[in-house]
């Protein structure tokens, strides 16, 4: 965990400081109240992982979100902000209790989280139709803005469909007709593979091997044996984090690098420089690259590094944009969290000036955004093109 994460207040500390702060303001008699908003502070519940496989992601998201709100004078719609932070770990079975704690016990106005897709769906199910506004800063399960979509559920990140669908076309354009798939055998991996097939197979491509691998193991020998036997035109993958590094190195060691082109989505994100020469030439489709040269990104990279000491990544910008979305919505209603409908409408029609480029929201409250085609050159994810312009998630099953 980064040093930033260590300084995070625990939930208990928060409750303590919050109540002291409240007591102080109450005594001095300056407690502005709102229609339904109640207290002076806007309560932002955060349910992100600070331990477990996704600890780094949660830490970056929260840090960038706080950075954005700090740039706005630490205020949302003119009101002070109080964060109530719970560590979600990667434990789906505890998410019901955690979410309850935030929406029932703490009665937060905004609920930011999570990273994990399973937890995300459970949270979405629980907040659907409630007053609290949920903003998903990462979890990419299609269903969150599909089946579970609701006016009070927003997402500032991506869907697994959105990142993988453009890859099918891009690989066909690159002349790859026979492709082998390798991905983690868990929900996100499976959705990524399905979205890829959705564009690849109708376009005339053929899947010669469909190989889900056990999560979170990084032992690929037997699968590589199969790849070598089948000799596909290319391999499309879903791996991320430390396992992605191992995957790229093993792929190179198996002698495939340069012979069988390697494609992915999150494969090289935050990992390309760590894999050394093994990552060279890998192509990925994603909604961000730290190599984008727009002014917002340049500034954000510098600010984030200054605030945390870490390099900016896709997760950080998602946290940053979550902050932007709250700011725009709360400014529109002048901080009145009681005006839920006006607030969610304002949020839905907001335009976010993101480090990834400008984006807006679909009817299902999901970003309509460009998906970039990136190639690793010298350890960096260089943008070599736009794989899909202003791509909208189909939001299958969304009735709202």
């Amino acid at each position: 965990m980064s040093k930033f994460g260590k300084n995070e207040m625990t939930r208990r500390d928060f409750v303590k400081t919050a109540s002291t702060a409240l007591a102080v303001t109450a005594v001095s008699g300056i407690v502005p109240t709102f229609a339904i908003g109640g207290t002076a502070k806007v309560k932002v519940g955060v349910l992100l992982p600070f331990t477990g496989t996704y600890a780094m992601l949660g830490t970056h998201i929260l840090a960038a979100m706080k950075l954005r709100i700090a740039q706005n004078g630490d205020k949302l719609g003119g009101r002070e902000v109080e964060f109530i932070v719970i560590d979600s770990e990667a434990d789906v079975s505890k998410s019901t209790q955690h979410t309850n704690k935030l929406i029932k016990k703490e009665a937060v106005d905004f609920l930011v989280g999570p990273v994990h897709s399973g937890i995300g769906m459970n949270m979405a199910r629980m907040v659907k139709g409630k007053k609290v506004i949920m903003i998903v800063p990462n979890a990419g399960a299609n269903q969150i803005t599909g089946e579970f979509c609701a006016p009070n559920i927003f997402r500032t990140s991506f869907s697994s469909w959105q990142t993988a669908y453009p890859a099918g076309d891009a690989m066909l354009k690159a002349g790859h007709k026979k492709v082998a798939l390798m991905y983690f055998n868990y929900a996100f991996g499976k959705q990524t593979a399905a979205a890829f097939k959705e564009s690849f197979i109708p376009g005339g491509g053929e899947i010669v091997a469909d190989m889900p691998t056990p999560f979170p193991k990084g032992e690929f020998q037997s699968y590589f044996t199969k790849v070598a036997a089948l000799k596909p035109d290319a391999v499309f993958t879903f791996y991320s984090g430390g396992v992605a590094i191992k995957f790229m190195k093993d792929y190179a060691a198996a002698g495939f690098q340069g012979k069988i082109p390697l494609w992915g989505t999150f494969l090289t994100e935050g990992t390309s420089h760590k894999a050394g020469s093994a990552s060279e030439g890998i192509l990925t489709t994603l909604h961000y690259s730290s190599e984008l040269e727009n002014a917002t990104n340049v500034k954000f990279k510098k600010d984030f590094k200054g605030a945390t000491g870490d390099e900016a990544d896709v997760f950080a910008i998602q946290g940053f944009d979550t902050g932007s979305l709250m700011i725009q919505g709360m400014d529109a209603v002048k901080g009145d969290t009681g005006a839920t409908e006006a607030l969610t409408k304002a949020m839905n029609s907001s335009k976010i000036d993101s480090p990834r480029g400008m984006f807006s929201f679909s009817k299902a409250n999901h970003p309509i955004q460009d998906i970039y085609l990136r190639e690793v050159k010298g350890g960096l994810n260089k943008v070599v093109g736009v794989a899909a312009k202003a791509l909208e998630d189909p939001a299958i099953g969304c009735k709202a």
Partner: protein
Amino acid sequence: MELSFYLIQLLNGIQFGFLLFLVASGLTLVFGIMDVINLAHGSFYMIGAYLAYWLTGIFGNLFLGILLAIPLAIAIGMAVEKLAIAYVYKKGHLHQVLLTYALILIFDEMQRFLWGNDSHSVDVPNLLSGSIPLTDIQVYPVYRLFISAVCIIIGIGMFYVIQKTKLGMRIRAGASNNEMVQALGINIERLFSIVFSLGVALAAFAGMIAVPVDSLYPGMGDNILIISLVVVVIGGIGSIKGAFVGAMIIGVSSIFGKTLLPDMASVIVYAMMAAILIWRPKGLFQAI
């Protein structure tokens, strides 16, 4: 698919089987001789792997890292035996399960505390990083052959110790009749200590040499523990030979399962275990 594919997969399966054998043989001895159910056995695989990863990072050489990690791992194992497990030898299985379950919680959390949550990996040492070309694109990594060779040497060494030495005689006696060993005046506490340390050493060493081919990740000990339990149950508790045969069956079938029937890969292993146990409720082989 060509024949070469199946042959190479068989090789992959055997190599995985060898690693499983190292872990499972220690487990089966501890079960068989000490009648102790040690769920924390997988944790020693993890500890071995992370020690090797850590020391390799410091000294820049995997072999040196392993050399230094082995005594450390054994020391940790002995400490655990003396400070915790020794207290539940006579307390029955339930207490052993709970105690070692608690040890897993502690070890897993210590791992997170010390080395974080992301997966890590260690490069194959230069000396063994080559690979043998088999077809125009199919290659077999030298390091995997090295793993198999080391495991064979250890296996032969174990066979020799157990069959030909005085210690081996005691171990064999302990596995088949615990009371007799005590009646013969053999220091059972020392024997337990030795057997437990041997088991820890084998599991930890398996973790160490596997580091360059397997990745390191939180909870890796749990995975290897469960699959090793299956191996032990199939082979027959207390039987080294059984552990070997069981490890090969599970190693090969899980590799083929993974590539040929990926949706059912893990279920296959357990279904096979059930089938063997319906046929032979006490596993394939008698103790030792």
